[in-house]
């Protein structure tokens, strides 16, 4: 079985950037050829994908998603989440461990991978818990979890409040060369807050979460990272102070990496007006000043990764009193379009986008990816100029909790391929 991706601009940062053809044989990249070098003539069985005018990238990776299986399959299953990923242009996703039961032991990791295998769509790399039951009291068995297929550790959803446990987790994970992903939140400061602390919260009568609830923990984790000479990945950066702390730490050579989500660089706290629970998440949408600083952090590389924090919830959890509504929004099927807006706005280059959505997450997670001969054909194709309107009713995800429904976008993922198998094709 031969597939030829023809005429697209292939961007594989650090490796190649140009209009070339990619020949795929038996699920692997066989050859990368200058345009029109006659591969088509090799045989009649060549399936040709015309990618002219489009961007061909190594498979996009969303290193921060929530699939709700096991436990809350009415919100999202592993399969529906994988399909949403494929339709959003991703070839790999990392589900966080806050399922029910929690992914804090080898059996759950194996269960998730088994389900992902049955779904047979995108690659699933489970993130296992830092602490048993996500309760911040004792370490999980990292050795067993690694063997079962876990790729990183995080108590995402809950912060690791105990600094000693966090120190030991970083040290212990170092022995397996696996990253710790930190959800930075000081629970005392966040208290009963539901939105960003500031004028919007005050006028709406909602309890606020100050920026310091996040940045104080970012600074702590940077300090622990230095202490342990390990590495740390900061999840869903939302504040100015966090960006400044991470930038500063990187300058000192601390091995800290960071991600932000499309909603933090697209929206501000104004989106919660009219008590829109589809704009409620944790950390909360912040001020325009925070958003500006995040854009700078994306531009200068302080923020390495764009990850969605895809958090499906049914309307049962969202059509309720604002302070009782569940946190989080879905993101897999809107991320590429929202990130392309950064390119159109001149914040990052297309290469920068591919770095943040593929190359950098792969590096952090230790995944061997890229468009070179011999590698599995995990490829995403993006049309950077396709205009369309976001229609959440057409999503693959089982949930609809997005503030972006009805938005006019320019640019979209149009084809997703894993090991040469086309999972999604809108070309």
């Amino acid at each position, binding site marked *: 079985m031969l597939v030829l991706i023809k005429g697209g601009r292939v961007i594989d940062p650090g490796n190649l950037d140009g209009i070339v053809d990619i020949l795929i044989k038996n699920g692997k990249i066989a050859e990368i050829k200058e345009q029109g070098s006659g591969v088509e003539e090799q045989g009649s069985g060549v399936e040709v994908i015309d990618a002219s005018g489009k961007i061909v990238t190594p498979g996009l990776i969303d290193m921060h998603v929530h699939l709700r299986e096991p436990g809350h399959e009415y919100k999202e299953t592993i399969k529906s989440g994988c399909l949403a990923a494929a339709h959003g242009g991703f070839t790999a996703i990392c589900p966080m461990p806050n399922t029910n039961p929690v992914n804090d032991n080898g059996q759950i990791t194996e269960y998730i991978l088994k389900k992902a295998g049955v779904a047979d769509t995108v690659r699933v790399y489970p993130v296992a818990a830092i602490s048993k039951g996500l309760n911040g009291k004792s370490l999980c068995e990292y050795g067993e979890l690694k063997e079962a297929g876990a790729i990183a550790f995080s108590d995402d959803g809950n912060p690791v409040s105990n600094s000693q446990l966090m120190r030991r987790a970083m040290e212990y994970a170092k022995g397996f060369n696996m990253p710790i992903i930190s959800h930075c939140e000081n629970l005392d400061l966040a208290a009963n807050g539901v939105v960003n602390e500031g004028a919007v919260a*005050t006028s*709406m009568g909602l309890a606020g979460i100050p920026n310091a609830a996040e940045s104080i923990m970012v600074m702590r984790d940077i300090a622990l990272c230095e202490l342990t000479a390990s590495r740390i990945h900061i999840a869903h950066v939302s504040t100015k102070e966090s960006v400044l702390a991470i930038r500063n730490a990187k300058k000192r050579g601390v091995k800290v990496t960071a991600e932000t989500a499309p909603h933090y660089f697209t929206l501000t706290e104004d989106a919660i007006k009219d008590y829109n629970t589809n704009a409620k998440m944790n950390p909360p949408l912040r001020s325009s000043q925070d958003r500006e600083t995040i854009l700078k952090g994306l531009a200068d590389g302080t923020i390495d990764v764009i990850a969605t924090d895809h958090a499906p919830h049914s309307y049962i959890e969202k059509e309720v009193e*604002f302070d009782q509504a569940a946190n989080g929004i879905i993101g897999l099927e809107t991320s590429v379009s929202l990130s392309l807006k950064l390119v159109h706005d001149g914040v990052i280059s297309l290469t920068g986008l591919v770095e943040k959505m593929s190359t950098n997450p792969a590096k952090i997670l230790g995944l061997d990816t890229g468009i070179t001969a011999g590698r599995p054909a995990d490829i995403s194709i993006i049309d950077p100029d396709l205009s369309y309107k976001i229609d959440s009713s057409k999503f693959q995800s089982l949930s609809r909790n997005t503030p972006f429904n009805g938005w006019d976008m320019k640019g979209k993922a149009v084809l997703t391929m894993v090991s040469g198998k086309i999972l999604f094709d809108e070309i």
Partner: protein
Amino acid sequence: MRFTKKDILDIESLSVDEINLILDTAYKMKEISIRPIKKVPTLRGKTVVLFFYEPSTRTRISFDIAAKRLSADSLSIATSTSSIVKGETLADTAKTLEAMNPDIIVLRHSSAGTPHLLARLVKSSIINAGDGMHAHPTQALLDLMTVREKKGKISGLRIAIIGDISHSRVARSNITGFTKMGAEVVIAGPPTMIPKGIESLGASVSYNVDEAICDADVIMMLRIQKERQKSFLFPTEREYSKVYGLTKKRVENARSDVLIMHPGPVNRGVEIAYEVVDGPYSIILDQVTNGVAVRMALLYLVSGGARNAGAD
């Protein structure tokens, strides 16, 4: 002017003209409450549901009396637990209520924005009787009415609101209401109780009560809640009353024609001294009286006013 609002959700969404119309209507309604027969048939055949998710005595009774004086059928649903805890969502409860065709739902809820949610879900008129820390529009309207009645105007007055601004829906609605009607509002309290960005509502901020009440035409004291000590907002009631309470001495230093208000219930001896509550400047009970009038006016106006009302 015709009143066209279906819901009364907050002061922000009311125009100056609408507020004036409500107050004018309330003055007319007030007269009904001093008649020997305190009842008019205006809202005969209308159903008013008093839906109270949070304990309340005065507001609920005030609405109940208002509805009855207008001959509406009123009924109370009181529940102290949230819909989620109860197992039925507010949306479900609202739709169930809606199926019984009430005309007006008066909602008190501990979560901000809940009346807005309800207004999106049902066709009945929603009157917000207090939502979390967000708004208490009927309280602000009765306060505006009381001040206008006593001073003959609102515009140009200086209003000092003292206490726990952070947790107070009364403060928020009054800051919006009084500034909208042309008054100057200064708020004061310990910095732990002054929320970030409150200036954006139009108030100036002071941490010094003496400074705030100096030259004030109206001093409005807010109830201080004991449990706030647990979140480190103030050390003790003793210290609070000394530094931020309205003592007799502070009143002596205020303007000679000052009005002292309190939305109740009062913590005598904490935010306000015993003698001050009962003193000559206090208009706390006038507020309660006007509360009924304002609520009658609102029930009447959201029902369509003269258009739909029965013969009087």
